[in-house]
């Protein structure tokens, strides 16, 4: 979606004066997923190579490896089968895209090591590329630069959390232990997810800022919704009514607020953050429980509404207290305290 918008913007921004032909830039990459999808679609309609993203730079870089790959594939195939030239090209295009994706992942993972020093930036990506044995110019593969690095990291964290929770649930099922109370489960899930930020805590405020930029917004919103959905699903939520939305909305708000608290927390092992998290979950559980158990009595409804209101007010307009934000620069920020 973001890539389409970008492509549209790029097309529209091309000057269309009479004398200007439209300069063409040969550059490193289009978003691989989108490109692959478009490639597949165009192949289905019998129009190969419409949006192939093999640029000469990337393609010529891959040529030796590709030649080996296609040779091996041919050996494996039945020798009597004829492959046409266009099939070869398509095969090369697919192999090229996969190679590009793998290279991007390698560089992104390596660049994370340089984030504490260089921040979430093109420099970190360039250092990552150099560390992988590629030229620093390979960081130019990432059109959005630092934003792609942050989005990759957040996606990796979500994947790791999903694995963790799935394993835990499987273990509980095997041992036939009792399911933990929902609140405790949510607390542990959010805590383990937030702990993944600890190695990058000094630069996490920069990452949060990058996630709010327009080019990152679709991705970051998607990732947040995926995260809260995953956590609730693993907690056992199978609701099919409006509760689905309230629960996830509340959890997203709690997560965001806790993240903000965490970046300025200077306590031992982030204890203040976890206590903040517990209190927010306790406030929120009033809302969820009351909504599910309510026998339409006014009192429990009112209690539920108050619980939700307290949660939202603590998340969005907290009790203001000045606390140190950046130790080196002695900045302070208003923060929620409970």
């Amino acid at each position, binding site marked *: 979606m973001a890539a389409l918008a970008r492509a549209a913007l790029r097309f529209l921004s091309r000057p269309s004066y009479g004398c200007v*032909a439209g300069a063409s830039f040969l550059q490193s990459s289009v978003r691989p997923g989108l490109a692959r999808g478009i490639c597949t679609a165009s192949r289905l309609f019998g129009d190969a*190579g419409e949006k192939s993203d093999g640029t000469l*730079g990337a393609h010529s870089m891959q040529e030796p490896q590709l030649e080996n790959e296609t040779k091996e594939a041919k050996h494996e195939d039945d020798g009597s089968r004829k492959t046409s030239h266009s099939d070869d090209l398509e095969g090369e295009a697919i192999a090229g895209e996969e190679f590009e994706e793998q290279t991007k992942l390698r560089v992104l993972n390596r660049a994370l090591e340089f984030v504490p020093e260089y921040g979430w930036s093109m420099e970190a990506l360039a250092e990552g590329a150099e560390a992988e044995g590629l030229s620093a110019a390979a960081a130019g593969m990432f059109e959005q630069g630092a934003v792609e690095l942050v989005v990759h990291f957040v996606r990796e964290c979500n994947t790791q959390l999903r694995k963790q929770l799935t394993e835990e649930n499987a273990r509980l099922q095997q041992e036939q232990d009792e399911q933990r109370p929902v609140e405790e489960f949510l607390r542990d899930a959010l805590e383990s997810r937030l702990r993944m930020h600890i190695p990058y805590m000094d630069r996490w405020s920069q990452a949060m800022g990058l996630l709010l930029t327009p080019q990152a917004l679709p991705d970051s919103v998607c990732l947040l919704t995926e995260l809260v959905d995953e956590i609730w699903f693993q907690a056992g939520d199978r609701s099919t009514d409006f509760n689905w939305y309230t629960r996830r909305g509340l959890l997203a708000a709690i997560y965001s607020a806790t993240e903000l608290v965490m970046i300025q927390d200077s306590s031992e092992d982030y204890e203040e953050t976890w206590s903040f998290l517990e209190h927010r979950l306790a406030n929120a559980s009033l809302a969820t429980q009351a909504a599910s158990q309510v026998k339409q009595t006014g009192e429990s409804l009112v209690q539920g509404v108050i619980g939700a209101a307290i949660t939202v007010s603590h998340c969005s307009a907290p009790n203001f207290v000045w606390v140190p934000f950046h130790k080196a620069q002695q900045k302070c920020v208003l923060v929620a305290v409970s």
Partner: protein
Amino acid sequence: MCFLRKARGVAAALARRCLSVEARKSNFGYEVVTETEKTNKVYGVFQNVAKNYDTMNDAMSLGIHRWWKDSFMRLMNATPGIRLLDVAGGTGDIAFRFLDYISSKPHRAFQKEEQDLSWEEISQMYEQREGEQSIDKGSMVVVCDINKEMLHIGQARARERTNTNGLSWILGNAEELPVADNKFDIYSIAFGIRNVTDIPRALDEAYRVLRPGGRFMCLEFSHVTNPVVERLYDIYSFQIIPVLGEVIAEDWKSYQYLVESIRLFPDQSAKSRPN
């Protein structure tokens, strides 16, 4: 006797075949010429045009080529330490922009991150800026051009600039670069590749001199997609630009060649297809 006649016949046939292999045809604008002729003719065009190269570019693109080159730089997004080879960049447009981009990067990054500084930190920053060179980590740009006149213009411009650290000039053919293997991080060719006689060879050379992970960046005129605009552009190209060439540079033919070479260069989709 009959053997000698046969031998002469065979020799003649061989000679004809050799000649036809050597005299491969290429396009010089809409004119079909041999490849060696094309190289010489293109050399002649740029020799004539060198002094007014900027004016020529302004005429061809109504001044928008400057925006394109700035965009090109942003797309390149070079970090300090990058080595750039700018081919067919005789007058140094891309090279100078690269130097400016690299030297301004630390300041821009600094501005983005540090908003509230104490006065001590600011004074430290000034001391640092005086001490260090504007290019750190060994960024360098090498400008390569086949045409001496274009290089002279570029060098004259460089002398007027304050910051030329890491800039060097070499005379060379894009099809046979006088550069060792795996040397550069970025190979750029701006408005030059359509003038190259044997483009696949130039691309092979680019592949050779680039490091693994290096980027090939090409900026070139291409086809207009909108048919209405295309017609206007055709009129402008064929009726107005050569006249301007005659008026500004007293050289109708060179500008005719330049306009025709744009028409013959493959369009955007053909260029991005791997082949």
